[in-house]
């Protein structure tokens, strides 16, 4: 069904090991004195599914905007250091050239709906129209993306009349339809029900692995990230405090305390440890599978 997707990414003709690269990046919003992100260096290989976690105000959204080029092109302010995506330096590339490369899903879906379209189907086509995608191709991608996030029955509805959760599905579909090489999502499932958000995240995860789409996702749903992210980058006060596998980052006590939090599996193991019922040297679990194994071992 998704035959047309084969051209995604591969069509760029360029294979880059590090599709996202930040070197000593510091950014300060206009009218503020403290940088929102400080001295961040980061390399993300193509196709990686990478999560950004951290407390509110840690700099997660700013990092996302920086990778998508909204910093500095839209927000202005002072950007130091170098940001490049797919080998292109974002600070010297206009945002209209970056949009076909990096898709950004905003935290608040209401801010992303164009307001110029009367149906969900047209709304999903909006980005593609601006990229000049041929009509038949647009129609095919619309249907495929609506199917992917399960909104076919909303196709003829008025986008601004939808619930928050429905809008979140629509904006994800509209960005995916542009087939970006890099997808940046800022809390994309905050208004979805538990299984609905799992399904949407799983669909994005699947596209990422099938098409080598690089994903950078800001999410508070640690349980899901622990099981499915390739890598977790934890931020606090604008700097990276941990970067590694979910199991390493989320079981690190110094990370929990700095606004990231922990899954209930880790919380329960920590409680068992506090009561002296956890064997020394046994790693605290972060996923259900790890928890089943380690709680059995701990008995």
């Amino acid at each position, binding site marked *: 069904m998704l035959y047309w997707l084969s051209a995604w990414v591969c069509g760029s003709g360029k294979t880059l090991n590090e599709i996202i690269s930040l070197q000593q990046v510091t950014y300060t919003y206009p009218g503020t004195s403290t940088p929102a992100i400080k001295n961040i260096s980061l390399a993300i290989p193509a196709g990686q599914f990478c999560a950004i976690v*951290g*407390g*509110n*105000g840690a700099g997660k959204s700013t990092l996302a905007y920086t990778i998508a080029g909204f910093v500095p092109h839209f927000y202005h302010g002072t950007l130091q250091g170098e940001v490049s995506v797919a080998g292109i330096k974002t600070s010297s590339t206009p945002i209209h050239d970056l949009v076909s490369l990096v898709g950004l899903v905003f*935290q*608040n879906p209401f801010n992303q709906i164009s307001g110029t379209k009367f149906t969900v189907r047209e709304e999903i086509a909006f980005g593609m129209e601006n990229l000049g995608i041929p009509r038949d191709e647009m129609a095919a991608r619309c249907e495929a993306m609506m199917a992917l996030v399960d909104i076919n029955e909303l196709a003829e509805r008025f986008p601004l009349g939808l*619930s*928050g*959760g*429905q809008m979140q599905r629509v904006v994800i579909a509209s960005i995916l339809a542009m087939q970006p090489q890099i997808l940046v999502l800022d*809390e994309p499932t*905050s*208004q*979805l*029900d*538990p*299984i*609905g*958000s799992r399904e949407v995240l799983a669909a994005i995860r699947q596209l990422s692995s099938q098409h080598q789409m690089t994903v950078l996702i800001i999410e*508070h749903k640690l*349980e899901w990230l622990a099981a499915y992210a390739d890598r977790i980058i934890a931020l606090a006060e604008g700097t990276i405090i941990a970067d590694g596998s979910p199991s390493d980052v989320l079981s690190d006590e110094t990370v*929990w305390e700095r*606004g*990231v*939090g*922990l*899954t*209930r*599996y880790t*919380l*329960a193991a*920590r*409680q*068992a440890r506090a*009561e002296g*019922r956890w064997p020394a040297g046994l790693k605290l679990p972060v996923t*259900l599978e790890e*928890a*089943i194994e380690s*709680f*059995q071992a701990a*008995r």
Partner: protein
Amino acid sequence: MDLSINSLSYTYPSGVLALEDISLQIAYGESVAIVGQNGAGKTTLVKHLNGLLKPSSGKIQVGGWDTADHSVAELAIRVGYVFQNPDDQLFQSTVWSEVIFGPKNLGKAPDQISELANAALQAVGLNTSAQKHPYDLFASQRKMVALAAVLAMDTPIVIMDEPTTGQDYSGTQMVGQVVESLKKQSKTVITITHDIDFCAEHFERVVVMAQGRILIDGGAREVLSQTETLAQTYVEPPQLMRLAEHLGMGTMPLTADEFVAYWSLR
């Protein structure tokens, strides 16, 4: 101040039937979480409790007042409602004026207004942001302002629509503390939430909705362990119940403390 919903049905002006024959009795002092998939009718249901919506058929009573006979302003004395989206609720130019607006309009005395407003801001960790413009805050903090504005009204019934959405771990814990403090004051707390772990940790009763109807209603432990019924409305049991199930534990835990206690007993 009991809440009584009898045979409530509601059809939106567009013709969409959002609630169908809902009956629910909530005694004063209960803590109730309403869960269920997007579009199940959760928000539509709670908007009936402070009169924002009036039943198409059926009857709702708040401490004996029929909501059909009382204005939203009158009902605000009894029911505080925190919107899901703070931007639908906030309209003042400082956090402080936002938080005193409610108690002032309820006719409380000036000293009491300051006391209530300060306590509410303290509870949500915004006591140093009183003079800020709500739109200069993060969206997650704006949600806390909306919560504080309702807490300051000191109503016997507090309703929160998805209070933990967009909150980080400590923000969610703070909302949990607010719920605990309301419970301690013997107030009725009703929340809509998709965060099932939060639900298990803080609410005694859980009402599960699907397609405009109530699917299950009962104690949190009993309701949240019904994996198959929950799945019908896109909800799954809390993390620690799923773990307990896999470990073959007989009793389903609601909190990490309970989990470790049951696990240690085996």
